């Protein structure tokens, strides 16, 4: 097991090092090498998953890393933890990563930094796998930050242009704001539990060492971090911008893996989340799901629509976790990874075919030109819409809705509405892109089916989007038992494994099915068959709303006004304070005092001293000016002063 785990980590790491330093000189710029290394990881992950499916015990190993307590406490460790959840994540990550690598070999062809792209993909894979395999929070945090770095690098891969650079920076800083929560959580947990290891943290929670208020603070901290990474409102603003990166990156990082890390984190830390935290998780998730759905409705950029759909789906996952549908939330993570990666790669294929045209209003009727892309894309659309019984998305989403129904009915209704929206806007996307008549003949003429290295990943993912929900595999791997044995904590929301399991009630399923189908059909009707004029008429009453949606509820503007501007203002202010204040206030006082003194003594000595002595400067300078003024050169004056002081001394001596 250890060997497999190390292979999973090591292969892409080696790939990164070689690729980064030598990639340019390798034949084919080394892309094949990275595909091979990540495939090796994938194979290892599959083996691990197989053994977990076969009922193997969780695997855990840790090594002492360093001991900042100077020997007084326990050393900080790094380690590997493998259970069903890890196995699922490993397979999802390595599989999607492998397919994205493969896809990119064609997609990125001709880029001047071709080799570097693969190097960073490799690095991302390593980081993500570090995150997934970690057995403790600090270790996980390192992976967490490193994926952030890779995300930064890859979003900004084309940062010769300003937009990708800005987007990359925004992504990094926004997620870093979220990370503050993680930092606090780490500190709070270490302070109370004395360790970062998952098992010891849960143990501490059970034993009461990790208790209120720190357990709640830690829970909120973790969720805040998850909100940043998984783009939940109000920290979601970076994800749509991150679409400036190459599309395979969007598929891998901003759809399938990295953004799901937040969900993984919350799933992993389920045993210590208190009811308060869980309610917030569920609420934020539901609100985000609906809000992002609305925004997606009004976007014209194919990738932006997908981005908001990702935000929305991540909201569903959090909703699932928040209401205790643990299995459902993580299962949705898996299925979403497949169908969203599929759609992103599909959109990549389209964009590739249309010479980097991303505006859906210029597309249309591409299904005939690009059949494989089109049909696999349709599979993704159906999956996300939750087309009953056959698609993977149906099973996972249905389970989430069931959980919400049981626990927080209000959120259930929101989520249900969101499901309608999802189906509707996804169908809008599909219809605008692949159906109907071409809107821009020029683009249409250029379109062509992509090469095999791009379509094969699409086919594989398409199959998974449909089939991933079949069978009982996820029930075995994502068995709530994984977290259940860490439960039984009074502070947490769930006490037994039973709390994490929900029956699929027929009514809920029926409503979900109806929602999905309604949305799909509605979308198909409106965007395929209604046509221009009728559509405009339909839209007219909603023009105001559409504008709001199109402006993304104004989050960016809001942040500019309440965060960035004030921060810059403060920074500039502080700078002035630092240059003129801390340093110069003293100077000003000094100058004032000296001038006054000079005027009093009848000399207007305004030679401005070069102002070099600052802090220690003004007292002596004032005194000195006085002295120099006294040193008038007139000996009688000298004598008078001396005699005066002498007389004063006599008088004072008498008095004192």
């Amino acid at each position, binding site marked *: 097991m250890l060997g497999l785990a190390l292979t999973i980590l090591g292969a892409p790491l080696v790939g990164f090092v070689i690729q980064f330093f030598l990639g340019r000189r390798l034949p084919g710029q080394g892309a094949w090498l990275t595909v091979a290394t990540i495939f090796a990881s994938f194979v290892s992950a599959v083996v691990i998953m197989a053994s977990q499916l076969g009922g193997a015990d969780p695997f855990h190993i840790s090594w002492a890393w360093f001991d900042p307590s100077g020997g007084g406490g326990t050393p900080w460790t790094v380690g590997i933890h493998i259970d069903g959840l890890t196995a699922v994540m490993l397979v999802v990550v390595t599989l999607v990563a492998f397919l994205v690598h493969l896809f990119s070999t064609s997609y990125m062809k001709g880029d001047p930094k071709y080799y570097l792209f693969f190097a960073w993909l490799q690095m991302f894979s390593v980081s993500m796998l570090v995150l997934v395999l970690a057995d403790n929070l600090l270790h996980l945090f390192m992976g967490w930050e490193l994926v952030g770095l890779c995300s930064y690098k890859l979003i900004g891969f084309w940062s010769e242009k300003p937009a990708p650079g800005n987007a990359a920076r925004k992504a990094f800083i926004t997620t870093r704001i979220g990370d503050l929560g993680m930092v606090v959580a780490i500190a709070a947990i270490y302070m109370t539990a004395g360790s970062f290891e998952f098992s010891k943290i849960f143990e501490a929670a059970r034993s009461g060492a990790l208790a209120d208020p720190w357990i709640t603070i830690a829970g909120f901290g973790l969720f805040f971090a998850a909100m940043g990474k998984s783009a939940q409102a109000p920290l979601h603003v970076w994800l749509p911008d991150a679409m400036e990166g190459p599309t395979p990156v969007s598929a891998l990082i901003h759809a399938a893996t990295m953004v799901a890390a937040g969900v993984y984190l919350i799933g992993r830390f389920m045993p210590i989340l208190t009811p308060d935290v869980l309610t917030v998780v569920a609420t934020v998730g539901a609100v985000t799901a609906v809000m992002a759905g609305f925004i997606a409705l009004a976007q014209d950029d194919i990738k932006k629509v997908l981005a908001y759909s990702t935000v929305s789906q991540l909201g569903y996952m959090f909703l699932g976790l928040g209401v205790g549908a643990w299995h459902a939330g993580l299962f949705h993570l898996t299925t979403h990874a497949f169908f969203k990666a599929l759609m992103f790669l599909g959109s990549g294929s389209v964009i590739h075919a249309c010479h980097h045209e991303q505006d859906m209003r210029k597309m249309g009727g591409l299904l005939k030109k690009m059949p494989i892309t089109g049909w696999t894309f349709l599979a993704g659309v159906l999956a996300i819409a939750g087309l009953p019984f056959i698609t993977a998305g149906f099973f996972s989403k249905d389970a989430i809705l069931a959980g919400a129904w049981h626990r927080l009915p209000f959120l259930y209704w929101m989520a249900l509405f969101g499901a309608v929206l999802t189906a509707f806007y996804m169908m809008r996307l599909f219809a605008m892109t692949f159906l109907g008549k071409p809107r821009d003949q020029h683009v249409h003429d250029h379109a062509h089916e992509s090469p095999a290295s791009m379509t094969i990943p699409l086919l594989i993912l398409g199959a998974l989007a449909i089939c991933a929900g079949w069978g009982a595999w996820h029930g075995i791997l994502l068995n709530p038992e994984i977290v259940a044995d860490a439960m039984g904590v009074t502070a947490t929301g769930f006490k037994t494994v039973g709390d994490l399991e929900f029956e699929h009630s027929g009514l809920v399923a029926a409503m979900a099915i109806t929602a999905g189908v309604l949305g799909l059909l509605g979308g198909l009707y409106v965007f395929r068959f209604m046509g221009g004029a009728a559509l405009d008429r339909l839209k007219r009453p909603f023009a105001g709303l559409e504008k709001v949606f199109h402006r993304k509820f104004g989050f960016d503007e809001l942040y500019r006004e309440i965060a960035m501007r004030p921060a810059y203002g403060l920074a500039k202010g502080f700078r002035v304070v630092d240059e003129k204040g801390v340093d110069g206030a003293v100077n000003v006082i000094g100058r004032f005092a000296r001038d006054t003194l000079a005027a009093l003594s009848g000399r207007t000595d305004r030679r401005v001293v070069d102002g070099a002595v600052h802090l220690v400067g003004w007292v002596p300078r004032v005194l000195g000016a006085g002295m*120099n003024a006294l*040193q*008038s*050169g*007139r*000996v*009688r004056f000298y*004598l*008078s002063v001396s*005699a005066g002081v002498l007389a004063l001394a006599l008088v004072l001596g008498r008095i004192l």
Partner: protein
Amino acid sequence: MTIGLMHYLVVGAALFSAGLVTVLARRNAVAILIGIELMLNAANLNLVAFDRYGPGGVRGQVFALFVLVIAAAEAAVALAILLNVFDARDRIDVDAMTNLKG
């Protein structure tokens, strides 16, 4: 009225003050020197008076003699310097000598 120590001392103090005022008030260097002589003689008066009314001995009077000599030497040197200045500037107004200041 018998003349006692206190009378001498008061006269001495008056002499000293007069000397000091002269020094401070006059711009002419020679006048300043005269003021200084007054101050020295005030001290001399004190010394002699103390001897006369004090526990005895002639230390104070000897001191006063030495002071006279010193005063003469000092005045000689000072006048020499004044002459030198006068040679150079044709005046001995001390207020005019303010080349060196600050």
